[in-house]
């Protein structure tokens, strides 16, 4: 029986292809099933806020066709020394993922939200505060659809499902993250597998209120010494008049 010689490079290529074929099925099929999408920012310019100004951020959950069994979402990561949470609301309807809409044939059932309105800041353990937007679980799989109603309750409106307002409290920079990274939040898939959603992030910059400090500077470092010098000169003159 004739034997076929295989060159070393060909053997190497064959080994590499075999390895790839073995490893590919082990890779996760979908890295992220859920995305938190910032669909609008109103009020002040988040890149140049002044102290006291507010911004209102609209957020919507979008997902691919993957089946979701649980979802926990928060607004977190913000520096409370820079911005402070003012107010917020979530889902005018009781649940997300087309609980009101008539789902298309490919859609699964809805996922109820256990968080009521108005949205509140809360804390787990020693973590920083967050605004808890959504937490929902189901033994049956759910998935988001474009038809999912938002705050206006209209099916297919595509509007925000969560709306939060923050106020600038002091100069500085921070970011508000909408996602599943806070303790206790996650996207839960079949068999309890947890993954992270793709976050929506709003960068905020609060500028120093330049007018007030410069006025203070004039008073402290310009006007005040001038007044003192003037008073001293007047005293010297008065002393001279009395002496002379």
């Amino acid at each position, binding site marked *: 029986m004739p034997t076929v010689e295989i060159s070393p490079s060909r053997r190497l290529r064959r080994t590499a292809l075999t390895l790839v074929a073995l490893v590919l099925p082990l890779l996760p099929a979908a890295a992220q099933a859920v995305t938190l999408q910032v669909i609008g920012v109103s009020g002040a310019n988040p890149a140049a806020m002044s102290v006291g100004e507010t911004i209102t951020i609209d957020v919507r959950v979008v997902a691919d066709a993957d089946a979701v*069994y649980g979802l*926990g979402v928060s607004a977190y990561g913000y520096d409370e020394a820079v911005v402070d949470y003012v107010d917020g609301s979530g889902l005018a309807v009781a649940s997300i993922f087309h609980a009101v809409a008539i789902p298309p044939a490919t859609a699964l059932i809805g996922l109820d939200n256990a*968080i009521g309105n108005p949205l509140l800041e809360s804390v*787990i353990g020693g973590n920083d505060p967050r605004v808890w937007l959504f937490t929902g*679980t189901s*033994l049956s799989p759910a998935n988001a659809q474009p038809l999912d109603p938002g705050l206006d309750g209209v099916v297919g409106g595509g509007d925000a499902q969560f709306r939060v307002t923050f106020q600038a409290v002091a100069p500085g920079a921070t970011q508000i993250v909408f996602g599943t990274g806070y303790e*206790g*939040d*996650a996207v839960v898939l079949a068999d*309890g597998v947890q993954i992270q959603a793709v976050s929506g992030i709003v960068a905020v910059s609060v500028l120093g209120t330049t007018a007030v400090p410069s006025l203070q500077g004039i008073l402290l470092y310009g006007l005040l010494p001038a007044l003192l010098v003037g008073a001293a000169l007047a005293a010297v003159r008065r002393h001279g008049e009395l002496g002379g």
Partner: protein
Amino acid sequence: MHSQESLDTATFGLPASLFLLALLVVLLASSQASAQLDGDGDLVPDSFDNCLEIANGPNEPSNQVDTDLDGYGNPCDGDYDNSLIVDASDYATGFFPTLAGPGTLTDHDGNGIVTVTDFSLFLRQFSSGVPGPSGLACAGTIPCLP
């Protein structure tokens, strides 16, 4: 003379008494090692660990907590009604009403609030249909006090 010497050094060139002593030491060491197995790496030996596959040792808030004393630690005990089955009724009457609030049995990770990460622990057990596994021999009987 020769036969006596061969008897004394019959085992790997060691005197028989020394060989027996070494054997005893090896046996003791191996039994100690098996008693100290810690599959989930939570610093609690498996034979004392009420959750064998989920870390619930001294470095976790859920440190061996077993609220209903059934021998299954809270992180791996989705059987809230102690029927020895984790099913939809445990979810409907046990887990779901406590979501986003403080829980006792349903706060599987012991962080003080019931979240979707607790749900993921429940769902793991729901998929398998049973609580645990626990390393305690008395698991499933109340009270199971190791």
